[in-house]
């Protein structure tokens, strides 16, 4: 009996190790090999170097020209700039619209409210490819030239849903009697909104904004369809690099993006813990 139990415990332990190895090993390898000096074979460790990072930032390095993919750091920085611009706009727009929608659905009852809610969930469930193609056809049909503007508009169409859901979840946990208490103490509806509802919804709003920002920075499939030929975002740029073979700079870029995501997520957690 006891030994059977031990086998179970060891088995579970082994399974757990395997599970996390499977998830995290590739990521650990990417980070490790971003410091690998070997320019040709990524899997062959031949010394420690910062060269790939230097290369990304256009600093002097010892890598021979033909070992490199990035022809100009300019290209990379341009893609990054595009991504940040798009993310800044989409985050702002999606946060404002998503929050407003969530508040409206929380506050008011109107005909078709349930249906409206379902409509807001739909973009999250729709396959990216379908949404991408649909947006492309729409923009082309409407005669809008593809570029940053279409990326922003297209991403907003589903980011609003994410923000809406995060803020709604926050509002759903809110105590309605607090509004009564506020009115009881003499506050009109606007004051109650400003001093009671909004501050409590704030962690949800910030969480929704961070989520929208990360998804926007990360989105490949939909953005790929609606970006046009000249406009590259960071994910599209990296995807393009991959098609010409996996080069060491990719490890460095991936590591930097990982760091950035961690920073954003930590910020989110920090706000969460602070505003309860």
């Amino acid at each position, binding site marked *: 009996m006891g030994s059977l139990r031990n086998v179970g415990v060891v088995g579970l332990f082994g399974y757990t190790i395997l599970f996390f190895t499977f998830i995290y090993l590739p990521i650990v390898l990417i980070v490790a090999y971003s410091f690998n000096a070997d320019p040709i074979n990524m899997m062959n460790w031949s010394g420690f170097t910062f060269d790939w990072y230097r290369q990304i930032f256009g600093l002097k390095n010892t890598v021979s020209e033909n070992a490199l993919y990035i022809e100009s750091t300019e290209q990379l920085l341009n893609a990054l700039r595009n991504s940040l611009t798009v993310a800044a706009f989409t985050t702002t727009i999606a946060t404002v619209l998503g929050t407003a929608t969530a508040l409206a659905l929380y506050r008011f009852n109107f005909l078709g409210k349930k249906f409206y809610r379902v409509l807001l969930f739909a973009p999250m469930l729709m396959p990216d490819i379908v949404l991408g193609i649909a947006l492309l056809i729409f923009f082309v049909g409407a005669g809008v030239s593809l570029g940053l503007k279409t990326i922003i508009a297209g991403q907003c169409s589903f980011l609003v849903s994410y923000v809406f859901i995060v803020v709604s979840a926050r509002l759903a946990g809110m105590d309605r009697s607090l509004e009564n208490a506020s*009115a*009881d103490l003499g506050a009109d509806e606007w004051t109650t909104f400003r001093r009671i509802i909004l501050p409590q919804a704030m962690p949800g709003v910030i969480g929704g904004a961070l989520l929208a920002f990360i998804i926007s920075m990360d989105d490949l499939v939909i953005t790929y369809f609606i970006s046009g030929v000249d406009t590259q975002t960071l994910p599209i740029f990296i995807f393009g690099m991959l098609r010409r073979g996996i080069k060491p700079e990719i490890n460095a870029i991936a590591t930097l993006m990982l760091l950035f995501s961690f920073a954003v997520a930590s910020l989110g957690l920090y706000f969460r813990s602070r505003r*309860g």
Partner: protein
Amino acid sequence: MGEHIVQLERATKAFALPEGGTITALHGIDLDVERNEFLTLLGPSGCGKTTLLHAISGFVQLDAGKVRIDGDDVTERPPHRRPVNTVFQNYALFPHMSVGSNVGYALDIARTDRKERNQRVGSALELVGLGGLENRLPRQLSGGQQQRVALARAIIARPKLLLLDEPLSALDRNLRQAMQIELKTLQAELGISFIFVTHDQEEALTMSDRLAVLNKGLIQQIDTPRTVYDRPTNAFVASFIGASNLFEGTVRRSSASTTVATADGLQIEAACAGGWKPGDGAAATALIRPEQFALAGAGATGPTIEIAIEQVVFTGLTFQIHGHTASGRKIVAIIAAIRRADVAQAEKDGKVRLGYDPAAVHLLPDDAPAANEAVAGVAA
């Protein structure tokens, strides 16, 4: 300006239930609350106490009827424009604000001068025994402390009328008694009218000027605590307030005496001095409070009931004797502790003869609950 701070006229409210149908929480209630009065609402859970308070504060829109506060018809007025403050049953403290900001909220809304505001927040917290806790968050307080913050928040604007929905329920006995005294003092000092909901009978009896007993959306009786206790208008009130022995039966009336004959063969004598005087053959319920029984000695002259003793509970001041008559009817008697020796003897005998004074027997119109419910009040 009328003499009443609150007047409800045929206040009616029904809620739609999600599973269909409606539930009537207020059944056409008429209620006048005097200026400076301490009125307590008492009643079983779900009888409409909170709904009644919310009708006054404006969170419940009446289906029919009127609410007047201080002579003004406020039936259509939104809550924030009614001169009323509330201590909510679930406290409803603002979780993102400090205790100080919670308490000062009404003053901030009214744009009270900063210095005066801080000083009043300080003294309100002092009053509820939470001085110096201004900077805590509500979730860093115990349940009882939160309840007192809710109290401080509701009184700080010195409303004409304070509605309190079980404001002391989370406090321990000592603190509760201290707060009861504070509330009474406050009410007298500020000249505020209180409408106070409680589940605690002792609290209701000791604090109130008047007591309203509610059941199923209707006021069963509204009167001074003494009258409600001594002369309940029906069996519901009798069994809800205090412990009671109820004997439902038929009135036998002669020139010499009035008795209630129960189906199981008991004859309860009643003097019918004051109160209801039913005619011969009427259905009536006789009420005998447990403390009105006495141990009947050998030479007892008045009416008596013999019971078999089931249990004797010593509470310090009294003995509670639980027993039943020959027909199985449950009886509770409360005997003063000085009769220690006699109680011990009765306990040894396993039976006892209880005497009562017909003058203390109160007759109620017959709408008595089932006999075994009649003594349910004792446990409370």
